[in-house]
């Protein structure tokens, strides 16, 4: 029975995204010919620099985000969340109901709060201010209990219990510990160290939420700030008591998700419930403090590592024991050894539960944390053994892409002329300059889920439609550009329609799977449209479809030499125009990408000030669908890594249980003045003619490279992110 396969079919492995986490599965696809992306040099729009089609409306404020939707009679909602990790609460619901302008009040009847930021009630009123007042009228009487919000509290002997089975999740491990330890004998250097990354936040510019357009009746529209348009109708319909088909999910523009916005969420559920109760539209976008405590976080990690290196630079053995902090939920995995090849390794990992909100996927879940520990350890091993960290990296990375990428970033950052190669600089003088490196890996493959429709009208208009959201990755632009290129049109010749569950199915944007899943379906629809159009024209012109060429806004019958403008050709279509659909084609998508990054920093040894002078990234990704957006996405990942490397950390008072920096003053995010020169380079030696998503890879190694650069500059090894001046001064022995 093995390998029973249909003729013309083949089995392939694809990556699906489950709430932002990649999951592999095997599927069967057609093993037949079809469209190909064609030679790299022949593109007219793809692989060029195209400004986003929605750039102007976004930067001028004309794009209407879910946050911006205003409807007649609409109520504004606020959610009451617990300021304490464990508590009971009494609410004055009557007072809230009587508060001026209130249209709905919901008591979630929480018997006992189990996490800091847990929602307990919601109100909706005719103005945002009155909603605030109504929330206050609830006059919550909190009775705080006993909690565990830190590692120490959660692991203490008499710790308050968080999970049903205690405060530890299921431990996983691979490798033989004793064998691995034994392999370290005789190594040139052995380093043992603990590395930690705090819980951090997504800090989406647009907070989580929806605007529900429902006033009773039998249908609704839900404007959602989500990464998964098609998750909205079913979930919202359940709350509203409607059929899923009666609810439209709309995501025209969305202000960032980074993995934190899958599904309707508690905020969307409450908005629907409030709308149903009031019989009016409801606008519920979380306030910034609630966004911080209750809108998701990236899990932290505390990892003990022991590694060994030979004098020739071979990485011999690694023992890694990770505790991960994902609040009341399982934290992101901690893959070790991360990317680098060790001869022997043992890695264990366990979630430590705390009374805080569950972590959510965040851009490359688990990878930036693993990168920080691994890249730091490698540099420590190099320093101890007196080896060049660039050469050691190259020696222990299997994939050939890393060899050329590391060479290129080293060249761009100025490593050859840099003095501190095998030992760090001394903490002396006005500024100490250092360089550090890191590498990344990701899948970025696609899977069959998207359905794209291309329409060509008799008047020459062309549209390309699919329900997909544009998370900020340039979807709207390539939904048009792929079709435009196929039909020989300029980008403006095709209208992209996206962001509605009434349009063709699309996958959620997570795990960098959007481009790998959607771009092939768009290409397929475009190819089908062109093929159909050519067949129709050939018939009308008495030619052969293979002789019909679409280029530069014209259509040429190469058989007769007759040339028509695109509009003239369209006029030859029947009254109803032409419609073509497209689905995923395995050959158009790829999987597996690599990147290397380098950082140059300067450190003031007297104050611990770290300034990032330059960050360089070389990233491969198969076919660059849009080089401008791609470079922008690489730069975005680098900036995000810089920000959490230098600044970002959630702070909770262990005794009071209060979130101390649930605002953008105290939760510090990098601004323009922190961001040095950013050099985002596309690795054009990757000539795969395949669409691959690139978002996650770009965010993985930047902070690791910065941490290594700080050490390289002045010998300050900071093992606990972020690299704030207090830690740099402590690492220099000055505190």
């Amino acid at each position, binding site marked *: 029975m093995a390998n029973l396969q249909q003729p013309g079919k083949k089995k392939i492995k694809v990556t699906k995204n489950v709430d932002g986490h990649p999951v592999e599965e095997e599927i069967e696809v057609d093993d037949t010919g079809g469209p190909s992306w064609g030679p790299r040099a022949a593109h007219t729009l793809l692989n060029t620099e195209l400004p986003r089609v929605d750039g102007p409306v976004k930067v001028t404020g004309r794009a209407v985000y879910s946050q911006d939707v205003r409807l007649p009679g609409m109520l504004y909602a606020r959610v009451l969340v617990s*300021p304490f990790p464990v508590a009971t609460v009494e609410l004055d619901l009557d007072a809230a109901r009587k508060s001026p302008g209130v249209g709905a009040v919901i008591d979630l009847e929480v018997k006992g709060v189990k996490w800091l930021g847990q929602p307990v009630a919601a109100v909706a009123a005719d103005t945002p201010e009155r909603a605030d007042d109504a929330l206050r009228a609830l006059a919550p009487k909190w009775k705080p209990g006993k909690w565990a919000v830190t590692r120490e509290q959660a692991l203490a002997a008499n710790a308050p219990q968080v999970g049903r089975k205690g405060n530890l999740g299921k431990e996983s491990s691979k490798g033989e510990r004793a064998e691995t330890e034994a392999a370290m004998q005789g190594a040139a250097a052995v380093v043992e160290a603990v590395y930690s990354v705090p819980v951090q936040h997504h800090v989406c510019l647009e907070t989580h939420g929806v605007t529900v357009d429902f006033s009773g009746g039998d249908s609704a529209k839900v404007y959602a700030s989500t990464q998964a348009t098609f998750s909205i109708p079913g979930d919202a319909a359940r709350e509203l008591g409607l059929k899923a088909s009666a609810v439209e999910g709309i995501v025209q523009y969305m202000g960032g998700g980074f993995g934190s916005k899958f599904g309707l969420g508690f905020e969307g559920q409450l908005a629907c419930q409030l709308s149903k109760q009031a019989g009016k539209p409801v606008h519920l976008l979380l306030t910034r403090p609630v966004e911080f405590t209750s809108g998701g976080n990236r899990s932290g990690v505390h990892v003990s590592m022991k590694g060994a290196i030979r004098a020739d630079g071979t990485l011999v053995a690694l023992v890694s024991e990770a505790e991960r902090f994902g609040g009341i939920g399982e934290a992101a995995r901690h893959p070790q050894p991360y990317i680098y090849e060790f001869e022997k390794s043992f890695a264990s990992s366990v979630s430590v539960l705390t009374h805080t909100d569950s972590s959510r996927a965040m851009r490359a879940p688990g990878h930036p944390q693993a990168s920080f520990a691994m890249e730091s350890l490698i540099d420590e091993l190099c320093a101890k053994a007196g080896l060049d960290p660039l050469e050691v990296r190259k020696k222990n990375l299997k994939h050939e892409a890393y060899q050329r990428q590391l060479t290129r970033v080293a060249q761009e950052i100025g490593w050859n002329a840099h003095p501190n190669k095998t030992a760090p600089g001394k903490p002396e003088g006005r500024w100490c300059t250092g360089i550090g490196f890191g590498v990344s890996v990701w899948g970025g493959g696609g899977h069959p889920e998207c359905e794209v429709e291309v329409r060509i009208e008799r008047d020459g208009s062309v549209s390309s439609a699919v329900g997909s959201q544009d998370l900020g990755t340039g979807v709207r632009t390539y939904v048009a550009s792929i079709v435009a290129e196929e039909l020989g049109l300029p980008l403006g010749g095709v209208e992209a329609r996206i962001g509605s569950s009434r349009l063709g199915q699309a996958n959620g944007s997570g795990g960098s799977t959007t481009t790998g899943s959607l771009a092939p379906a768009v290409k397929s629809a475009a190819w089908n449209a062109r093929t159909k159009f050519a067949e129709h024209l050939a018939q009308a012109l008495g030619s052969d479809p293979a002789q019909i060429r679409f280029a530069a806004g014209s259509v040429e019958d190469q058989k007769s030499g007759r040339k028509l403008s695109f509009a003239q050709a369209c006029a030859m279509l029947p009254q109803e125009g032409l419609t073509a659909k497209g689905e995923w084609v395995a050959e158009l998508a790829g999987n597996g990408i690599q990147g290397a990054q380098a950082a140059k920093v300067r450190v003031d040894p007297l104050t611990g000030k770290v300034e990032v002078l330059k960050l360089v990234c070389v990233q491969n990704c198969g076919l660059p669908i849009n080089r401008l957006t791609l470079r922008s996405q690489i730069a975005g990942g680098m900036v995000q890594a810089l920000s959490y490397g230098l600044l970002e950390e959630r*702070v909770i008072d262990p005794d*009071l249980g209060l979130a101390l920096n649930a605002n953008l*003053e*105290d939760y510090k995010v990098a601004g323009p003045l922190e961001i040095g020169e950013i050099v985002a380079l596309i690795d054009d030696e990757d000539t795969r003619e395949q669409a691959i998503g690139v978002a996650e890879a770009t965010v993985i190694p930047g902070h690791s490279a910065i941490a290594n650069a700080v050490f390289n500059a002045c010998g300050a090894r900071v093992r606990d992110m972020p690299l*704030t*001046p*207090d830690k740099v001064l402590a690492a220099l022995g000055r505190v």
Partner: protein
Amino acid sequence: MKAFKLHNPTDLESALALLDTPEARSGATRVLAGGQDLLTEMKEHLAEPDALVNLKHIPGLDQVHAGADGSLEIGALCTLAALEEHAEVAQRLPALAQAAGVVASAQIRSQATLGGNLNQRPRCWYFRSEHAPCLKKGGTECFSYGGMSKYNAILGGGPSYIVHPSDLAPALVALGASAEIVSAKGSRTVALEKYFTLPSESDVKRETVLQPGEILRRVLVPAPAANTRSSYTKFREKGSFDFALASVALALVLEGGTIRSSRVVLGGVAPIPWRSKAAEAALEGGQPSRALFEKAAAASVRGAEALAHNGYKVPLAKGLVIRALEELCA
């Protein structure tokens, strides 16, 4: 926020009359200038006044007068942006212009005023959290003592460990400025150095000598002595929109290669702008050198006592004093 009555007087006498009532003296009426701190306090229910007296309709309160003798009178309603761009301020009082230029963000500087900057409340995250009933809010405990104290005081702390958040205050103290305070009863002038109060020496719920019913009308800055140089150096984790982890305001008279007199005032490390007479003494009569700067830096933090998470502020403040002296004496 709680609903309040807004008064918009158009002359100072009317404003003072509105503040000369038993309610106002009890603190239920507050003075509104740029509103950059007060309104955020009100939004977070840290302040819940019944009435606000808006000073922005009173002509003249934002004026800067340059005296023929080189002194400056700066109206309390002068915005930080105006101060930063004022030609005479930049020329005579570089420390003040520099301090004004590094407050918060450009948007805030265009609204925020000199008076508001000097009278703003602490940024301590316990003070700003409604659920932490700290000493400053009438509670019995300073939670930063034994708590998450990274941004709290290393000098002059106890029983409260806030740091004064103003950038202008250290600069103005270094420049020897004084504050003109008016009320319905008259006016008084207080050296700015005495304007700010330590939690141990007066009401722990206040940071200044300004009483309910009083308005800070203007700040008077004397003409700097000949050969005076001044600067304000702020250290923050972010390059914009961040409060100081530590800062240093310097005013030196440097003549013939010798420091004849000096003022050294630290910000971000104490509940008040922290003038270090020990550092001044270390500098005076000396010739600029790294050794001299290190001596002054060590003296500037004399008596520092770190809490659990702010020990780094000692080397940071010292490092900053050295860097600031290096630049100013260059």
